């Protein structure tokens, strides 16, 4: 088979203790038998490990932080495009998605394709809209409330029963057993990720996740459910197993059909003691454990690239059950000259 040459820019190349999805996304693309890819890493920090993983990433460029705004990002991408002729960009981090969605028309004019949710889809699934989202699409969600000031935690007993989960807008969460703990988490998380803060009723149970891909027309192109087997103190899955749970697949298809979701996503769910699933969060991008789906026979990164390029992609209908992923950390030895280049020139 003649392989199609393609250049793909990938963000989130930070496989650290709270890992970005970039490296597993790249592994999926590299596994493709249809595509011969050149991978351009797009990083935010000089010590993002992906910058130095030359067997996976051909070249890396630094991007301005999302807080710098969409115009700065566009300027940088225009420069990168003049050098690399990217066909596709896969943004993998929550905090940058807004800018990339806003820039989609300009990037398309430059020849860069993406497969992202619309701004409406992106906004609607926000943690602070989850209550309304659950009602609108008839998906069970835990009771939640958005708060903007630390004093508001003292009125939570009216609507919630402790423990509650205090969540940041993009990342981070803590389980609070009383108002004092809730206030501490409020201050800690809001200082890092800003406002608002989301208060969610704690659901005791086991955590399940689904990684999926929607084509924007209501079709689920891929979906693999997973049970976390080992969770780090940051709440990240360090090991997981693919499972055969029809309820989760039905919920996923229902979500994609109702929202006409476009792009990769992750559903985070909790199964309570009665066996009922509650949707805790919808992440509007591929999760860091996506390589499990590739290992189970659904190459979601490859399918996403094809969708971005406007190709027809047949939905995956099957996957291997009982496949596990076990994450590990690994020390690379890096020459200081490489660190110097990325730090001073912004590219390596």
């Amino acid at each position, binding site marked *: 088979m003649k392989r199609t040459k393609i250049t793909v820019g990938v963000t989130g190349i930070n496989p650290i203790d709270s890992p970005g999805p970039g490296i597993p996304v790249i592994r999926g693309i590299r596994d493709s038998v249809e595509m011969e890819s050149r991978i351009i890493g797009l990083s935010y920090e000089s010590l993002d490990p992906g910058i130095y993983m030359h067997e996976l990433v051909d070249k890396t460029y630094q991007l301005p932080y999302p807080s710098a705004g969409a115009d700065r990002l566009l300027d940088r991408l225009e420069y990168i495009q003049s050098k690399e002729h990217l066909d596709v960009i896969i943004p993998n981090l929550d905090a940058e998605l807004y800018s990339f969605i806003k820039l989609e028309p300009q990037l398309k004019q430059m020849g860069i394709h993406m497969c992202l949710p619309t701004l409406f889809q992106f906004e609607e699934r926000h943690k602070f809209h989850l209550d309304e989202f659950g009602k609108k699409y008839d998906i069970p969600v835990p009771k939640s409330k958005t708060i903007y000031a630390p004093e508001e935690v003292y009125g939570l007993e009216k609507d919630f029963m402790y423990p509650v989960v205090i969540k940041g807008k993009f990342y981070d969460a803590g389980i609070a057993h009383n108002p004092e703990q809730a206030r501490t988490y409020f201050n800690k998380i809001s200082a890092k990720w800003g406002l608002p803060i989301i208060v969610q009723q704690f659901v005791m149970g086991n955590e*399940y996740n689904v990684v999926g891909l929607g084509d924007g027309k209501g079709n689920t192109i891929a979906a693999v459910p997973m*049970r976390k*087997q080992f969770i780090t103190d940051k709440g990240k899955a360090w090991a997981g*197993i*693919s*499972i*055969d*749970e029809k309820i989760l697949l039905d919920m996923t298809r229902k979500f994609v059909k109702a929202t006409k979701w476009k792009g990769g996503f992750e559903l985070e769910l909790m199964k309570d003691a009665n066996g009922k699933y509650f949707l805790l969060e919808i992440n509007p991008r591929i999760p860091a454990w996506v390589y499990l789906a590739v290992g189970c026979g659904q190459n979601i990164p490859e399918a996403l690239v094809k969708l971005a390029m406007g190709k027809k992609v047949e939905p995956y209908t099957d996957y291997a*059950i009982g496949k596990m992923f076990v994450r590990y950390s690994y020390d690379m030895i890096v020459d200081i000259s490489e660190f110097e280049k990325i730090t001073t020139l912004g590219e390596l």
Partner: protein
Amino acid sequence: MKINKNLAISENGFCLNPVTGESFSINPIGAEIIQLFKAGMTSEKVVKELCTSYNIDEATMERDLYDFVNVLKHHQLIQADEKN
């Protein structure tokens, strides 16, 4: 007794519930019981079979089987609504 149809059990007694992702290590007699149920035997036949194989009285075997079945139910390895 209806063991969940996709339940995978190895020769070593390692057992995966593919719906929940939970895994268990079951001792040889437990694994034998599951295999007998999977083969379609009723509880009564399993008791008789094991009494013959291990030379124990029926009352003890029935009680032990009842306990084991409850553990299986707790871990959703058998269908909870099955009476037999």
